């Protein structure tokens, strides 16, 4: 996608982006990506104040980009509009927190059991709903002490794991499982001491924060990047962010822009990494049989990485596993979006198709690699949902994790 002003020249006003937009499909007044992207951008270039509250309702799922036949780069225009958007105080304060899951993670994991207790408490959730417009119909994921650290390395080839906030503050066990998967395939893993990838910052309209995070993360990883190390992520959003040069927030920065491009070339989603091993005949295929029907939901930020469905390929290599690539649209959660009171209905409306498809399929297990997709599927269907890493590891170990 062309990142410069000329991308708006590509738009032929065909409205296919509107047809692909999950929010347009459920919200009768949402103007749609065609208007919030190229049309408002053109007005902004004219010098008009084209700010509108509707930009907040963009999920950031990138489906408009994927549907656009002209490579207009619609979602990035809307993200820039979000950054310029002025919110009323309550939403601004709430979104300030939502933009910083790293900070939130640090604070809540000082004494995780206490935080978890309070975050689940009915009256607390009621208060959060009234004061901060955080829906009380959802419960925050449990936080635990951040214990994901680099294990001792041998002489094996090293890869860098970009953990992201979810693996750091909520599921370090999943991080360890990612490490174990890579170790079982002959790699030593260094866990990067990076912070948040910046996707929540962009989604909540804080471009300056996203830039700061990108700079810090690049600084932490600079040496390993220069040494040609591959970077692996287990979160589709972190993966998209790294591959797209941190969402383009470093454009025009002569020092960091080249580095951001390099990280894009060296970043792999964990499934993409393992799939590449498999294609080269180097994947550890010592799988035990796991008799299971798995329904796999591809997160939107995986689709927008343009790498196909690597988890489907990997899971199908496990004897006994049958994988149904559900392909029933966006789940509607989009990270922090579904937690917002005013967006809850939209979120659930968007995910409706997916919930119905899953309920009709009645699989033995639902798998998706995005943490918030997992939350949403469980919330909307009651079906327990796992990261596909768990299934692969189960196949290696011969027993459930």
């Amino acid at each position, binding site marked *: 996608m062309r990142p410069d*002003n*000329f991308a*708006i*020249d*590509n*738009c*032929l*006003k*065909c409205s296919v982006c509107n047809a692909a937009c999950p929010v347009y499909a459920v919200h009768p007044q949402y103007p749609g990506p*065609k*208007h919030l992207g190229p*049309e408002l951008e*053109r*007005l902004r*270039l*004219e*010098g*008009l*104040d*084209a700010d*509108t509250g509707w930009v907040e309702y963009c999920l950031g799922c990138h489906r408009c980009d994927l549907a656009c036949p*002209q490579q207009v780069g619609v979602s990035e225009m809307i993200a820039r509009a979000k950054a310029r958007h002025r919110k009323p105080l309550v939403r601004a304060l709430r979104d300030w927190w939502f933009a910083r899951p790293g900070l939130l993670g640090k604070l809540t994991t000082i004494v995780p059991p206490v935080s978890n207790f309070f975050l689940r408490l009915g009256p607390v959730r009621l208060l959060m709903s009234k004061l901060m417009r955080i829906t009380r119909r959802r419960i925050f994921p449990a936080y635990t002490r951040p214990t994901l650290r680099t294990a001792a390395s041998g002489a094996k080839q090293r890869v860098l794991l970009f953990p992201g906030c979810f693996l750091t503050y909520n599921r370090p066990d999943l991080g360890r499982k990612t490490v174990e998967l890579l170790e079982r395939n002959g790699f030593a893993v260094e866990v990067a001491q990076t912070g948040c990838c910046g996707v929540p910052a962009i989604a909540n309209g804080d471009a300056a924060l996203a830039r700061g995070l990108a700079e810090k993360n690049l600084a932490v990883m600079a040496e390993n990047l220069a040494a040609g190390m591959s970077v692996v992520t287990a979160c589709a959003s972190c993966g998209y962010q790294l591959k797209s040069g941190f969402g383009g927030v470093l454009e025009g920065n002569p020092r960091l822009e080249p580095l951001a491009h390099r990280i894009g070339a060296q970043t792999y989603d964990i499934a993409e990494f393992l799939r590449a091993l498999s294609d080269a005949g180097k994947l550890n295929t010592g799988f035990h049989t796991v008799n299971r029907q798995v329904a796999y939901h591809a997160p939107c930020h995986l689709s927008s990485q343009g790498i196909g469905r690597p988890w489907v390929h990997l899971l199908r290599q496990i004897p006994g596993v049958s994988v149904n690539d559900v392909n029933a649209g966006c789940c509607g959660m989009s990270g922090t979006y579904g937690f917002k009171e005013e967006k809850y209905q939209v979120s659930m409306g968007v995910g409706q198709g997916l919930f119905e498809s899953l309920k009709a399929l009645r699989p033995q297990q639902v798998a998706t690699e995005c943490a918030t997709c997992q939350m949403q599927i469980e919330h909307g269907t009651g079906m327990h949902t796992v990261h596909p890493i768990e299934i692969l590891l189960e196949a290696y170990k011969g027993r459930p994790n």
Partner: protein
Amino acid sequence: MESTQVVIIGGGATGAGILWDLARRGIPALLLEQADIANGATGRCHGLLHSGGRYVVKDQETARDCLAENRIVKAIAPNCVEDTGGLFVQLPGDDPAFFERWWSAAQAAGIPSRRLSADEARALEPNLAENILGAFTCPDAHVDVFRLVLANIEAAVSRGAQFRSYCQVTAIDAAGGRVRSVSYRNTRTGEEHTVACEMVVNAAGGWAQRVAALAQVSVPVCCDKGTLLVLNHRLASRVVNRCRVPGDADILVPAGPVCLLGTSSMVVPGPDGLTASGEEIQSLLQLGGLMVPSLAEARILRTFSGVRALYAPPSSAAGGRGASRSFALLDHEELDGVAGLLSIVGGKLTTYRRMAEATVDCIAAKLGVQVPCATQTTPLRPVLSRAVRRRAERLLARPVVDKLECRRGVEAASVVAAIEAQPELAELVCECEMVTRAEIEFVLGSAARLPAETIADVGRRTRLGFGPCQGTYCGYKTMLAGYQTHRWSSEQAAREFTDYLGERWKGQSFLHEGKQLEQLDLSRELYGEAPCAGAEREAADAK
């Protein structure tokens, strides 16, 4: 037979300005225009409100006039003017002495200007070429030509003046050396009329000679064609001039969401049948690219050509850019013994009001009217009341309200009322230029002071179709609006739309590649290959 005191022929800026000045001074007048407003040079230029910078080296007097009028137009028609400011940039290879002469001449003429280094200039305008040497600032601005002409005519109509579009003058009765009446034909209905009058003003620009011939006098005009390109988005937020002796492709003007690049100069036999050649366009891009290299990648929406009608009395040898840009007011009573006939030729868009003032001073003297000119201080339209603005802001987004106010002025109240009565009329029919259904219906309806006759007329009054889709979607919806409001029958509506499309397509027909060609192909796919074939396409042996 209808009658009035003054008939003006030609609905460009000059004619419109004269109508307003006459109305302001209480002199009844009728303006006849053979097509729609600004059909000639006015509607086919950059819309540059000169600061005088382009004349300051060669013609200080014109420069001073421009500067004075620049300030006046900004004051009397703020809704028509985008006060962008301008730059005169120095390119390597251009005469450095000219650059210095410009500076001293600008000082002498009183044009407010600052000298900028190359870096400072590029800080203001990042799209300027890397190798510019420096720049001067100046108070250039962009004026929406259609809005300006409309504002003058609407103001005049509010005071009792009359305006008829699509009325072509067929005869001027000047028997016995005195103007008595003007006959005209409505080109859309074929009806013929005659209006008795005491004076006739020939403000027909490129057609001035043709009109003059109707009264058996001669007004020699040289038609100098200029071609411009419209680019899809603003490559500069200020007017960018090339600081050299005026030549081709040395002006880039931001105009709303688009920008205009021009222009060329070649003498042509007349104002009709103008085309832009591929070479002209390539030349414009190549030369303009010296100032703003990103022109090479920008999407061209359309091209158009217009003529500058330059007064070329037999004594002057040079045509084209050499000919004088100042205007000439010809009193045919003195020149040819035809009393009551005036011709006003030449001049610039920027000085239209001054030209009108000179003309109407002459008319007033002849008619014995003692009222002095007041157009230099009278705003063309009253400000929209805050109450109406507040009502509008409850229904529409702020940029839409701003544009509605700029375009319609106090008439916006009717548009707002229509939306309040029928909320679905708030829909933006033209999303590129933010035009609501209510506004389109208003402009097509009889409540408007200058109702639109065709879809292109709607475009001139609202900028509908001026954006990337060039009317592909909004033109269709406007056709339906015209049908639904009973303005047109279904057959007439379809004809209006295919005519409109044909005209829009013509402006894009030179394109051999690029995004606009894809847009054009999309339009052709939707409606059929040739403009009129869309409704008639049918297999010969279909059962």
